C-alpha cells in the first residue's frame, strides 16, 4: 500500500435515485447539494456543519425531489452563482431552468429547509440531440451548454428567466462532452469526443468564436476544470490521463503536465482550493472507480525563467462506489469545507467524502 500523506474518508451516502446518478452540484450560496440521474429526477439535500472540538461534522438531510419532466436522463446540473437558479441538461436535448417562486417563499429556504416548490421557469431548446453538460459563467450572465449534436451554445441570461442565444459554436467534429467557464473571465472551454479542447471568447462587436484548440489527448476528453486562480485548465480523458494546460499568454494555453495513475477513462475532475498555500487540490475519478487527489503547486520562478507546475498525489481511494463507475466528482465550494467533495456513481448513489491530512 502506498504511503500517501492524506486519506479519504466517507462522510455519508445519499440514496434515492432509481437509476445511475450522473452529476452533483453544490449550491454556491446556500447549504444545498443537488444530484441528477437517469431516473430523470433531481434530488436536493441540505446539510449542516457542526463544529465539535477539532473535527467538523457534516449532516445531510433529504430536502426535496424535482421530478423535472425531462423525457430522458438528466445528465448534468448547474447552479447559477446567485444560488437561486438551477439548470438541468437532459438527453431529451432540452435545458430546464428551475427556481422557487420568490413571492411565495421569499426566495430562500430557511435553515430548517422549509420547502417551496422548484418550478421550471424556462425550457431552452435548440440542441438537436442529447445535451451533455451545462455551466454558468462566474458572473451568472451567461449559460453554456453542449451536445452530441457537436455544438456548444452560449445563452445570455435576461431578467424574468428570459434567455437570448449569443452563439452557436460548431467547432468540434464530434460529440461535445463538457463545457466549463473560467473562474473570473468570460472564457469558455469545451471538450469533445474528437479528442480536442476548444477555447472561446466573445468579440463584443460580433459573435463568440474559438480562439484556441488544445490537442494532445489521445482519446475522448470527458471533463474540464479550471484552477481556482484561472491560470490553469485541467482536462480528463478516455486516454486515462489528466492533462494540465497553462495560460502562457493572453490567448495561448500549453500543456504543462500529464497526470497518470487511472486505469480506465477519467470521467470527471474537479479543482478546489484545498488546504494549504498551493494552487489547490485536483480530484479525478472515472471508469476505474478510483478517486485520486492531487496537490497542485508551482515552484518559485527560476532566474530568467518561469515557474513550473508541480503535482503530487496525496490521496487515493479505490472502489469509491464499489464496482460501479464513478461519473462525477465535485469539491464543496464553501469556506471551511474545502476538503469536502461529493461523487455520483452508476450505482445511483451520491457519496460525500472528506480528505484528511495525516
Amino acid at each position: 500500500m502506498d504511503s500517501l500523506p492524506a486519506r479519504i474518508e466517507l462522510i455519508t451516502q445519499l440514496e434515492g435515485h432509481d437509476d445511475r446518478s450522473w452529476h452533483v452540484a453544490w449550491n454556491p450560496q446556500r447549504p444545498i447539494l443537488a444530484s441528477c440521474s437517469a431516473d430523470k429526477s433531481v434530488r436536493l439535500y441540505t446539510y449542516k456543519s457542526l463544529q465539535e472540538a477539532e473535527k467538523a461534522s457534516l449532516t445531510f438531510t433529504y430536502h426535496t425531489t424535482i421530478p423535472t419532466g425531462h423525457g430522458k436522463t438528466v445528465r448534468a446540473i448547474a447552479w447559477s452563482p446567485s444560488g437561486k437558479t438551477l439548470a438541468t441538461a437532459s438527453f431529451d436535448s432540452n435545458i430546464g431552468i428551475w427556481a422557487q417562486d420568490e413571492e411565495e417563499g421569499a426566495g430562500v429556504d430557511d435553515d430548517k429547509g422549509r420547502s417551496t416548490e422548484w418550478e421550471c421557469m424556462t425550457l431552452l431548446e435548440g440542441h438537436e440531440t442529447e445535451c451533455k453538460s451545462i455551466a454558468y459563467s462566474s458572473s451568472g450572465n451567461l449559460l453554456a451548454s453542449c451536445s452530441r449534436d457537436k455544438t456548444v451554445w452560449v445563452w445570455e441570461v435576461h431578467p424574468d428567466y428570459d434567455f437570448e442565444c449569443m452563439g452557436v459554436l460548431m467547432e468540434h467534429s464530434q460529440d461535445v462532452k463538457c463545457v466549463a467557464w473560467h473562474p473570473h473571465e468570460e472564457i469558455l472551454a469545451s471538450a469533445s469526443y474528437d479528442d480536442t479542447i476548444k477555447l472561446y471568447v466573445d468579440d463584443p462587436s460580433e459573435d463568440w468564436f474559438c480562439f484556441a484548440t488544445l490537442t494532445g489527448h489521445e482519446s475522448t476528453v470527458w471533463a474540464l476544470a479550471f484552477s481556482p486562480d484561472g491560470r490553469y485548465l485541467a482536462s480528463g480523458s478516455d486516454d486515462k490521463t489528466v492533462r494540465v494546460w497553462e495560460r502562457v499568454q493572453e490567448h495561448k494555453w500549453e500543456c504543462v503536465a500529464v497526470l497518470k495513475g487511472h486505469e480506465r477513462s477519467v470521467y470527471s475532475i474537479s479543482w478546489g482550493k484545498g488546504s494549504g498555500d498551493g494552487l489547490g487540490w485536483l480530484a479525478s475519478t472515472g471508469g476505474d472507480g478510483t478517486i485520486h487527489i492531487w496537490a497542485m503547486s508551482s515552484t518559485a520562478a527560476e532566474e530568467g525563467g518561469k515557474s513550473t507546475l508541480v503535482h503530487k498525489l496525496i490521496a487515493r481511494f479505490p472502489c469509491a462506489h464499489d464496482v460501479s463507475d464513478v461519473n462525477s466528482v465535485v469539491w464543496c465550494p464553501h469556506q471551511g469545507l474545502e476538503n469536502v467533495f461529493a461523487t455520483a456513481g452508476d450505482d445511483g448513489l451520491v457519496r460525500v467524502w472528506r480528505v484528511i491530512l495525516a
Partner: protein
Amino acid sequence: MAFSGALTLTDLNDFITPSQACIKPVEQSNKVDVKDAGSAATQIQVDSSGSYYEVSANGSAPAASSTKLETAQISLNDCLACSGCITSAESVLITLQSHTEVLNVLSTNSDPSSPAHRVPVLSIAPQSLASLAASVSSSSAQPVGPSRILRRVEAFCKDVLGFSHVFDTTFARHIALLEHGREFLERRAGMGKLPMLASACPGWICYAEKTHPEMLPFISATKSPQQVMGTLVKEWMGAKWGRSPEQIYHVTVMPCYDKKLEASRQDFYNEAYATRDVDCVLTTGELELLMREKGWDLSMPVGGEEDAARRGAVGLTGSGTALPELIAHPGTSSGSYLQSLVSMCADASPGPSALSVRAVRTADYEEHTLADTGAGTVLLRGAKCYGFRNLQNVVRKVGRDAGVQVGRGAAGRMAAVRVRGRPRRGDGAAAEVDKGYDYVEVMACPGGCVNGGGQLKPAVSAQEDAEGYARDWAENGVKLNTDGGLPSSDARWGTRGWTKKVEEAYWHGLPTPPPSPGPETINGTSGNLSDDHQKIQWADELASRILQDLCQPNTSEAIRWNTTMDDEAEARRRRLFRTQYRAVESEVNGLAVKW
C-alpha cells in the same frame, strides 16, 4: 463519391452544419428470389474493379451465378425527406447538380432543329455577380461592376458553353417582392398569421421544416426569386418561344448550396412534363471553376460591355422576352424583403412617415420601425435577422409573442416538462412598445446572401498563427475560415472584410446600402437612380403583362400586380407564384447513430 469539383470539406463555411452522419437506409431494389427455406444464404464479393457481387454462399459458385449489386445512391430527395442531418447541402451527395452535369447536358443536347433539343438558359443571382465582381476587382486596377461581369458571364455562357439566353434574377425578384407584398397585405387583413417570415433562404426553410414546424404558418408562401425565375423561363418564355417546359434546360447560378435543395423540392417539379422549373443549380464557385476549366478570363473585357450596362433601361420591346437587368432594390443585399414592405407601407400611409432602425448588438439583427410622424402610430414593425444564432432568438421571440409552443419531439424531447413561465412584465403602454414584429427578413448566413456558402472565397495568402508560424490547421480538421487561431476580430469568418467588399460590389457604386427611394431621392441628380427608376417602371409594366399572359384573367381591362382577378386566375397566380412547406418527421433511429 462525386462531390462537385469546386467543393472540398474545408471550403465549407455554412452555418447550419449536419448534426450527424447520414443514416438514410438504402432501399433494397433487388428482387429477392423465392427459395427454399434455409437455402438463402449468400455472400457479397468485391472484385478487383471495386464492384460488388452477390454470390451463393455454399460453394465455389462460378462467376455466372453471381449477381452484380447496385451501388447505393442517395438522392437529394432522400436528404430532404430525412432529418438525420439538418441538411447543409454541402455534406450531401450532390451528383445531380454539378458543373460536370451541365457540361454533359450541353454536350449531348440534340441539334436545335430536332424536337428533342432543349433550349439552354442560364439565370444568375445578383449576389453571385457581386462575388465575381469583387474577385475580379481585387486583382485589377479598376473596379469592375456587376453589369460588366454580367456581360462577360453572358459572353462565356453563350460563346463558349452554347447557352441561348442569359439573364440575371433581379426581375424575378421584382415579381417575388410584388407577390410578397401582396401576401403581407392578405395576412394583415386576417388571411394568415403574422409576423410573416421571409422564405427566400432555403437553409432557413430546411431548418424550420425539420426543427420548428410551428414556424411554418408564419413563413411567407411566396416563391423565392430562383423559383419565380423558373416559372418565368419554363412557363412564360417557353410559351413565347413555342417550347414546352421539358424542352428548356434551365440552369441558375446562386450564392448558396442550399438553393440546389430548393430547386429539387417536389413542389417545383412539373409532373405533366417531367421537368423541374430549375433543372440545375450551380454555385458562384462552381461557375468560376467552369470558367477556369474552359480557360475563360473573367478579368478581360468583352465587346460593348459599357453600352450594354445601360441596356436594362431601354423600355418594353414588343412581345419579346427581354427583361430589365440588374434592378437595384434598395434595402439589403439579401433581397430587400423588409425594405420593400417598409416602402409599401410608407406609400400607403396618408401622412408622412419615418423609419427608425435599431441594431440589436450587431448589424445582423436590426429592428426597423416605420411610424406615422403625425399621429405617432406604428405602421410597420420589422426586423432583419441573419445568421443561425439570431435565427434562434427570432424563433423564440415569435413563438413567445404568438403563443405557440416552440420545438417538438426530434429526439423524443419536450416530454412533460411543464414550463411555468411568467407573465411578461409591463402593462398598458409598456405592452404596446413590446409588441411583436409584423415581418422578419430571416437569412441563415451571417451577413446574408453576399456571404453565402457558395460564394468565392478571398485569396488567402498564408495560414499563419499569431507568432507567424505556419500551421497546418486542416490537419486537425479545423476549418480554415473559421479558426485562424487568432483572437483578432477577423479571425472567425476570416472573410468578414471580404464580405464587405462583396457587399460594396453588390451595390456597385451606390452608397452601401443606398438610401431608400423617398420622393427626394427619386428626382435626385444621380443618373444611376433615375435609370433605376425607369427600370422599375418597366419591371412593373412587364410584371403586369406576365400576370396577364400566365393567369389569363377573365377581363378586358389592363391589370396591375395588385389587381384581384377572378377566382380561376387567382388560383393560377397561387400555383405559379406561391408554394408551401411541410414538417419533416424525424426518421432518426437512435440505434443507428454513432455516439
